C-alpha cells in the first residue's frame, strides 16, 4: 500500500516536472520563434513587397518637372482630399505599338532562349548525371564555373568575338568562307547567342539535380524487357524528369524576359526589349510614372509563371522532406 502510494507520488512528481519542462519550452519557443520569423519576414515585407505598392501608385501618376519627377496622387486642398488617378500611362502602353512590340519581342526572345537552352542543356545534364560518381563533381563544377564568373565579363567576352571587325569575321574571312565581313554584332542573332550563353547554367543545374535522382534500375528493367535505348529515354527518362525541365525552363524564361544588359551591349537599337525600354524611360527620359507602368505590366505578365514555379518547388521540397 505504502509502496503504491509512494510510486503514485513519484509518478505525479515526474508528470509535474515534465509539465513544467514543456511549459518552459512553450514559453521559450513562441517568443523565440516569432522573433526568428519576424526579422527576415519584416525585411522582405519592407524591402520587397512594399516597394511594389509604390510602383503601382506612381504608375497612376503624371510626370512632372520636380524632384522626384512625378505628381502626388493624393493632395489636400481646401480641407478636401483630391485623388487624381491618371490612366494615361497604361492607355499609352496599350496604344503605342512600340511598347507592344517590345513586350512581344521580349517574350519571344525569352521563349526561344529557353527552348535552345533546354535542347543544349538536357544532353549535358543527362551525361553528367550518368557519369561515374568520381567524375561527376568535376564536370558539374565545370558547368558552374561560368555561372560564378561575372555576368558582365561573360557578355563582354562575346563583344570581341561578334564585333563586325571581330574574331569570328576574321576567322571566316581567312578561311575564305565569306568575302565580306558579316554584320553579326547588334543583331537579333547576337542577342540570341549571348542570351543562351548567359542563361545555360540555370537550365543545366536543376535538370542535373533531377536526373541524378532517377533510379537507374528502371532503365535496366526497360532494357531487359527489350526496350530500345531511345524508346526507354522517351517513355521513362523524359517523363520522370518533367519537374527538372519545368524548373529549369522557368529559371531561364522569367529573368530572360526582363533582361537589360545583353540587349543593351550587343542588341539592335531599333528592336527593343522591354527591360531596355524600362531603363530608357527611367534613366534617359526621366519619366518615372511611365517606367512604373511598364514595370506593372511586366510584373502582371510574369506573376503567373513565378507563382507556378513557386508552387512546384514547394511541392517537391515537401516531398523531399517526407522521405
Amino acid at each position, binding site marked *: 500500500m505504502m509502496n503504491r502510494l509512494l510510486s503514485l507520488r513519484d509518478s505525479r512528481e515526474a508528470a509535474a516536472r515534465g509539465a513544467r519542462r514543456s511549459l518552459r519550452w512553450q514559453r521559450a519557443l513562441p517568443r523565440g520563434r516569432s522573433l526568428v520569423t519576424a526579422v527576415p519576414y519584416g525585411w522582405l515585407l519592407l524591402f520587397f513587397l512594399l516597394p511594389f505598392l509604390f510602383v503601382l501608385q506612381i504608375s497612376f501618376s503624371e510626370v512632372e518637372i520636380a524632384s522626384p519627377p512625378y505628381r502626388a496622387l493624393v493632395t489636400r486642398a481646401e480641407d478636401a482630399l483630391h485623388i487624381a488617378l491618371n490612366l494615361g500611362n497604361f492607355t499609352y502602353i496599350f496604344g503605342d505599338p512600340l511598347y507592344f512590340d517590345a513586350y512581344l519581342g521580349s517574350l519571344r526572345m525569352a521563349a526561344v532562349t529557353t527552348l535552345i537552352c533546354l535542347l543544349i542543356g538536357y544532353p549535358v545534364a543527362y551525361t553528367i548525371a550518368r557519369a*561515374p560518381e568520381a567524375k561527376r563533381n568535376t564536370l558539374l563544377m565545370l558547368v558552374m564555373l561560368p555561372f560564378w564568373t561575372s555576368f558582365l565579363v561573360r557578355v563582354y567576352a562575346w563583344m570581341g568575338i561578334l564585333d563586325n571587325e571581330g574574331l569570328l569575321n576574321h576567322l571566316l574571312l581567312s578561311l575564305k568562307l565569306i568575302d565580306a565581313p558579316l554584320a553579326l554584332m547588334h543583331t537579333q542573332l547576337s542577342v540570341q547567342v549571348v542570351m543562351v550563353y548567359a542563361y545555360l547554367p540555370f537550365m543545366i543545374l536543376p535538370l542535373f539535380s533531377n536526373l541524378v535522382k532517377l533510379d537507374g534500375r528502371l532503365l535496366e528493367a526497360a532494357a531487359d524487357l527489350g526496350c530500345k535505348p531511345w524508346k526507354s529515354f522517351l517513355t521513362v527518362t523524359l517523363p520522370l524528369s518533367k519537374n527538372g525541365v519545368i524548373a529549369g525552363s522557368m529559371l531561364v524564361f522569367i529573368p530572360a524576359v526582363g533582361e537589360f544588359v545583353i540587349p543593351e551591349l550587343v542588341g539592335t537599337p531599333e528592336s527593343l526589349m522591354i527591360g531596355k525600354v*524600362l531603363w530608357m524611360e527611367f534613366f534617359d527620359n526621366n519619366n518615372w510614372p511611365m517606367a512604373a507602368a511598364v514595370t506593372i505590366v511586366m510584373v502582371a505578365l510574369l506573376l503567373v509563371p513565378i507563382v507556378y514555379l513557386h508552387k512546384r518547388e514547394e511541392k517537391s521540397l515537401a516531398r523531399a522532406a517526407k522521405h
Partner: protein
Amino acid sequence: MNGKNISGFGKLSLSLVFSFLYVPILILIAYSFNASKLVTVWGGFSKQWYTVLFNDDAVVSAFGLSLQIALLSSAMSVVLGILAGLVLARFGPFQSKSLFAGMITAPMVMPEVITGLSMLLLFVEMQQWFGFPAERGVLTIWVGHVTLCMAYVTVVIRSRLVEMDRSVEEAAMDLGARPLKIFFQITLPIIAPAIASSLLLAFTLSIDDLVITAFLSGPGSTTLPQLIFSRVRLGLNPEINALATITVLAVTVLVIGANRVMVKAELRRVRLAAAT
C-alpha cells in the same frame, strides 16, 4: 542514377558545350596580353594593359567600394538567410507562411530592372516621409544586395536543413537542451559547409551586380560593375580585358578551392557515418 562510362554521344555533347562555355573566356584572356590597342588584332605579347589597369585610380576605388559592399551584404544576407531557412524548414505552418516562402523565391527570378526600380521608388518615398535615407549610396545598395542575396542563401540553407539527419538534434532535445543551445552547438556546425558556400555565392552575386546597383547608387558611389559597364558601352577596351582576366582567375581559384574543401568535408562525413 549511376552509370559506368560516358557514351560517345555524351562525350560529344560535353565537349561541344564546354567549348561553347569556355572558348569566349579563353579568347578574352588571350587578348588581355595583346600589345595592339585594337582589341581584335593580335599585335604581340605585352603586359601593358595590366600596368594601365593598376594605375587607373577610378578602377581601384570602384573595386574598393564593391569589395566593401560585397562583404557587408554577404554577411547580412547569410544571417537573414539562416533565419529564413530555419523558418521554412523547421517551423510548422503559420498564417501567411506561403506568402513568406513566395517572397523568398521571387527575388531570384524577378528581372533585376523590376527589383531595382521598385526599391528605388521605396527609398524616394521614404525620404519624402521621414527624410531618411538622405541620399542614395552604400546603404541603399547594401539593402538591395542583401534582399537579392538572401533569397539564394535561404534556398541553399533550407535544402541542407531539410536533408540533414535530425537524430542528434532530437537526442539533444530529449536530454533537455534549450533550442538556442541546440541551434548553436548542433545545427550550426552540421550546416557549416552550406553556410560557407552560400556566403561565397552571396559575395559573388553582390560584387557582380550591375542593374540593381544602377538604380540604387548615388552620384558618389560607382561600383566596379558600373564602371566596367560605362566603359564597355563605348566599345571594346583592352584594359577591361585585363580586368576581366583577373576577375575570372580570382573566381576560378576561389571556387575550386572551396569545392575541394567541401569535397574533403563531405568525404570525412561519409567515412564517419560509415565507421559508426
